[in-house]
């Protein structure tokens, strides 16, 4: 595929690895926030081939993983109600709530359907006027404009049988929370390229200033990830802290203004629970009151559902890079990809799932003991 294959070239990758090796003189810890970047790193073994001095910490960049247990339980409740067609992206079907997941609800007779695009859910609402169609609107800023368009279309077309269960999360507050934590080990960040293609890069300047960390907007193909890492290391080595754009073929400083306008109309900022981390203030989007009619939480009376997280789960520490997945006692025991406890095991991008799936050969057989330092909750 054009503009994809060229950025997978193994020969150029080798040169980028060599260049990173050449310029690295001290140990650095770099966090990629985006789950898609984590996937690319683990799947291509990028962290295996980086010099030992460059450590990658996999951040909370998977909106699927960080959807709080309570929100999943709300989804399960709605999907179980008669007459409902519950539509979702494929990723969410295996995410467990307190006791089950959407797949199980489907097997119990719930009409749960995977959609590729939120507009497919709107189509279903038009095709089935006698049914209630609910769309599970999750994601980072990248997905919000698509989800917003669904609400916009439903509103335009006067659909009274369409609603959305919204659980959007925002990247800059997450970076703020991580960078502010006294136990943070992160020296530099790879910002999420596709999030920035929507929002632009301007939100990250203040983060760079406040925390004196380099932030490099990075893409997803192996060469893009390596280039992002190279830029961060180069900055760290020369002692600068700046905002850089290493994904300029897709990201502009101002972002996608048409998308931003739609999102500003349909959504409004709110506090959000992040599974495994806790509440991060002003880190989410919910439906704006203008579109309250499309809010599935009120329509199906599930707003009160609030579920506790697993006490065994240490994903918050994994997300901050304080422990490696195999250093958690539950890893591979109570917690596996089939029965995940927390955010980082829930989907393929989660650090724990990635380790479990791809790294069985590296995982030490006796877990390394760790003394728990104070974890600053956000």
């Amino acid at each position, binding site marked *: 595929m054009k503009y994809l294959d060229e950025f997978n070239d193994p020969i150029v990758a080798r040169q980028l690895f060599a260049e990173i090796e050449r310029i690295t003189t001290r140990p650095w810890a770099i966090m990629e926030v985006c789950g898609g970047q984590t996937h690319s790193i683990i799947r291509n073994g990028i962290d295996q081939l980086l010099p030992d001095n460059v450590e990658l910490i996999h951040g909370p960049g998977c909106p699927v993983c960080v959807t709080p247990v309570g929100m999943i339980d709300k989804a399960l409740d709605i999907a179980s109600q008669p007459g409902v067609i519950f539509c979702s992206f494929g990723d969410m079907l295996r995410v467990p709530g307190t006791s089950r997941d959407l797949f199980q609800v489907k097997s119990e007779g719930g009409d749960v359907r995977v959609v590729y695009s939120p507009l497919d859910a709107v189509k279903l609402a038009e095709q089935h006027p006698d049914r209630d169609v609910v769309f599970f609107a999750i994601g980072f800023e990248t997905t919000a*404009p698509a989800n917003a368009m669904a609400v916009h279309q439903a509103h335009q077309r006067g659909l009274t049988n369409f609603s959305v269960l919204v659980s959007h999360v925002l990247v800059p507050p997450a970076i703020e929370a991580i960078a502010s934590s006294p136990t943070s080990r992160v020296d530099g960040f790879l910002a999420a390229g596709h999030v920035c293609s929507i929002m632009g890069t301007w939100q990250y300047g203040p983060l760079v200033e406040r925390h004196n960390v380099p932030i490099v907007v990075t893409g997803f193909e192996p060469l893009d990830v390596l280039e992002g890492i190279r830029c961060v290391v180069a900055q760290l080595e020369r002692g600068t802290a700046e905002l850089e754009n290493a994904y300029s*073929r897709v990201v502009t400083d101002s972002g996608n203004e048409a998308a931003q306008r739609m999102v500003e109309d349909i959504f409004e900022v709110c506090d959000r629970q992040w599974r495994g981390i806790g509440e991060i203030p002003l880190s989410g989007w919910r439906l704006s009151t203008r579109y309250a009619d499309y809010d599935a939480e009120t329509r199906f009376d599930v707003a009160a559902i609030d579920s506790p997280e697993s006490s065994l789960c240490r994903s918050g520490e994994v997300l901050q890079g304080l422990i490696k997945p195999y250093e958690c006692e539950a890893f591979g025991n109570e917690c596996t990809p089939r029965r995940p406890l927390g955010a980082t095991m829930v989907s393929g991008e989660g650090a724990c799932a990635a380790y479990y799936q791809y790294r069985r050969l590296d995982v030490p057989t006796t877990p390394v003991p760790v003394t728990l330092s104070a974890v600053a909750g956000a």
Partner: protein
Amino acid sequence: MCLAVPGQIVDIREDRGTRMATIDFDGIRKEICLAYLPDIDVGDYAIVHVGFAISKIDEASARETLAMFKELGILDDELALESAEVESVELRS
């Protein structure tokens, strides 16, 4: 998060006020929403996420980035050559 892949716009049309397009990924054709890229044209490349084109690919920028990688490769080869020469000089002396 944010699986988005590059494709080429093949045709553009309106569907009840929403700008839609057919995008081509190496022979795969998919209908996507073009509402967020009002200035894009047939033949342009865009990245697509959940059925929406979210950003036009700046082809000149892509070429620049690839050219920069190429230069890096040449630079690295030169550096490798230099250090190999230094090593062989050291061996000889």
